[in-house]
């Protein structure tokens, strides 16, 4: 081996890699990485995450843009998909594999082997004692007792070496291998899965193609054509509420599903905890709200817009906010509107909703005239109105069936429809994760409740016995006492 000037051995690239691998796969590194993963998960629970609460993230950007920009650079609004979080769990994954696989091979080899030889100096071991018994029969009695207590036995000359609890390591390895299986399941799900959401008015049909979704994300290796070709019609939706607390007590969505599309449709009930399943794809009922149904006419009475408009709920009594845009009138007309399912009013708050069910609805409109900005090329939310090139021409609260004449035309509040938000998820990896989880618990139970220990019996200077319990697990002393008693009793019987 050559040495460089500093005197340290020149291990070369291969040596360096081997050294790095050994460091990475050491138990200490694995533990540090595990702790680090726990610490790294904390910021994601303290700061709002973009995929969970995008509005709150936006509010960070409006209150302190500079700070928010820096937080964003550190991926604090997207912790669990950030490079640094991924780096930790990928390293942990590697470390776990490097730690567990060699141990598994080692253990598989050790399973068939006999217990190690009896040490020369038994008196250094735990619970060492000399039993006053007949040394002629001692080995036979001890062997019988150890067999009855399910020890593996190795008889070598005048001594017995016995061991019990190999399944501790089996359970331990099973647990760690299962963790790897869970991670494989997670990876499969994110690489080959898809997830999307679509809002659907009751009465409408949803066809499972990418363009039907409001938003959809595919895994890296998931083809866009791989969606299950079903069609779903929302035939009815019933929400029931507690009359005292206004809290929802049940949501029931009745659908008619044709899978694949074109075949005869079946009626399927979807509830919050009861998704519809087809293979690894599931359809969930995730949220609901109201779409007021309006008709807009121009001055001469021609219909320029008619239909339900999806509004977004703002509070637990389902006051809902939305925008109605009429690009086909000149100048263009837009409404910022709120739908109140059951109206109440007070001096301080004006009109507000007192109950989430539609009992006495109002449609509160502010009418705007000008340029809707739809041709600017910038994508625009369908739920809000860009009023920068518009002016307000009126304000009105409509009861069901009434009409508001805003000068350039009129708008009629004809009715309402409930809408449901469907979440459609395909996760082909979750079965692996589930099996991983089940085996992990089994492995954990086996490893934590199996006690591994050795017992030795040696005949020579009297009958010596001693033991060794792995990790100082209790119970060995009792076992040695029982063995001693068996040996002493045998002496009594033989006399």
């Amino acid at each position, binding site marked *: 081996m050559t040495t460089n000037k500093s005197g340290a051995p020149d291990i070369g690239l291969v040596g360096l890699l081997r050294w790095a691998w050994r460091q990475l796969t050491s*138990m200490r590194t694995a*533990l540090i990485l*595990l*702790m680090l*993963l*726990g610490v790294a*998960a*904390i910021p*994601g*629970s303290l700061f*709002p*995450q973009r995929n*969970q*609460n995008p509005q*709150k993230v936006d509010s960070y950007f409006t209150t302190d843009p500079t700070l928010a920009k820096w937080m964003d650079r550190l991926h604090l609004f997207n*912790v*669990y998909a950030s490079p640094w979080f991924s780096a930790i769990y990928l390293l942990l994954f590697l470390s776990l594999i490097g730690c567990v696989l060699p141990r598994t091979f080692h253990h598989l080899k050790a399973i068939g082997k006999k217990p190690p030889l009896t040490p020369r100096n038994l008196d250094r071991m735990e619970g060492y004692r000399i039993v006053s018994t007949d040394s002629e029969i001692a080995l036979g009695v001890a062997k019988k007792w150890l067999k009855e207590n399910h020890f593996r036995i190795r008889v070598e000359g005048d001594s017995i070496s016995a061991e019990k609890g190999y399944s501790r390591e089996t359970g331990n390895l099973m647990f760690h291998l299962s963790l790897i299986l869970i991670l494989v399941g*997670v990876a499969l799900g994110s690489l080959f899965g898809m*997830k999307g959401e679509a809002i659907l008015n009751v009465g409408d049909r949803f066809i499972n193609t990418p363009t039907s979704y409001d938003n959809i994300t595919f895994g890296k290796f998931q083809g866009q054509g791989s969606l299950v070709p079903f069609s779903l019609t929302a035939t009815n939706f019933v929400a029931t509420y*507690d009359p*005292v*607390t206004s*809290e*929802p*007590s*049940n*949501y029931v969505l009745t659908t008619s599903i044709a899978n694949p599309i074109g075949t005869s449709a079946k009626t399927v009930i979807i*509830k*919050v*905890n*009861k*998704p519809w399943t087809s293979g690894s794809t*599931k359809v*969930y009922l*995730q949220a609901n709200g109201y779409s007021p149904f309006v008709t807009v006419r121009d001055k001469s009475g021609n219909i320029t817009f008619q239909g339900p408009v999806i509004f977004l709920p703002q509070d637990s009594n389902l006051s809902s906010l939305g925008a109605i845009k009429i690009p086909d009138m000149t100048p263009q007309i837009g409404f910022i509107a709120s739908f109140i399912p059951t109206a109440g009013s007070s001096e301080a708050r004006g009109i507000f909703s007192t109950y989430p069910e539609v009992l006495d609805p109002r449609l509160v409109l502010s009418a705007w005239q000008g340029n809707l900005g739809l041709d600017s090329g910038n994508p625009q939310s369908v739920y809000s109105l860009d009023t920068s090139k518009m002016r307000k021409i009126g304000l009105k609260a409509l009861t069901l069936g009434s009409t508001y004449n805003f000068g350039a035309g009129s708008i009629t509040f004809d009715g309402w429809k409930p809408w449901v938000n469907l*979440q459609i*998820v395909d*996760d082909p990896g*979750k079965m692996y*994760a*589930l099996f991983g*989880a*089940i085996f*992990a*618990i089994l492995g*954990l*139970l086996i490893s*934590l409740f199996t006690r591994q220990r050795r017992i030795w019996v040696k005949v020579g200077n009297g009958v010596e016995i001693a033991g060794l319990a792995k*990790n100082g697990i*209790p119970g060995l002393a009792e076992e040695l006492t029982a063995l001693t008693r068996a040996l002493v009793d045998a002496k009594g019987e033989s006399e």
Partner: protein
Amino acid sequence: MTSTNLAFFSNDSIYACLVIFTIAFFAHTFEVSWSVRNSSETDRTEFDFSKTQRAGRVGTAMMILGFIVLGVAVITRGLSAHRVPWGNMYEFSITGALMLTAAYLFAFTKYKVRWLGLPVSISVLLTLGTAITVLYRPSAPLVPALKSPWLAIHVLAAIISGGVFLVANLVAATFLIMERYELKGERPAWAQRIPSLDSLDQLSYRLIAFVFPLWTFAIIAGAIWAESAWGKYWGWDPKETWAFITWVAYAAYLHARVTVGWRGRKAAWLCIFAGSTFLFNYIYVNIWGTGLHTYSGL
């Protein structure tokens, strides 16, 4: 009885429990403080628990009575809403207090742990007191997301784990206090009947080794439920995140003990740290956190 009557009966039982556990608490303090005796020979304060045996027995009897009445309160609460009584933080708290009492009484039948009666009765009192005053919610049906058989399984596993984590923390804290005394010299007389440092160390380890698989199960049951309710089995919701952090902390504790050989003080501090991540999750995330686990206010 009607649902409303049952709910009122449950509330009254909780108030009765407050009285019963207060008596238990005073009986246990009386047991310690009235056993003080100034030894004439050594001129030192000594404790003679034989003098106050009756107070100790009253304390234990009250713990048993409290357990029964609290059990009735939890059951009638569930009956009044026609479901398992684990729908909001008030109900978690009263069930948790029941589990803590059960854990103590179970330990009492096996070991001499009357010394734990004092910390356990005060913990139960504080939990019930906060529950009925701050966390109280009228008995109501569940919101749709909670209507699942997993509610019983997932939440019960989490509550039992939480109760055992807290007992393990009490034991670890006792270890640290006793160790301080022993480093300075001898334990004060009142602490003589508390088990040896070694036993305390072993006890907290055994509690954690026993409950760690259950906690793992609680997380997995939650993941299975989340898959059917929210569409993904793991979403890094704040509650999930902290459950994971607690899991990591206890996993580190077990590794530190089994493979690195940590014992005593270091292990006790790690145990307390891991237990506080659980408490943080229960208190902070429930009250101030946002996420899918926050239902109906609390």
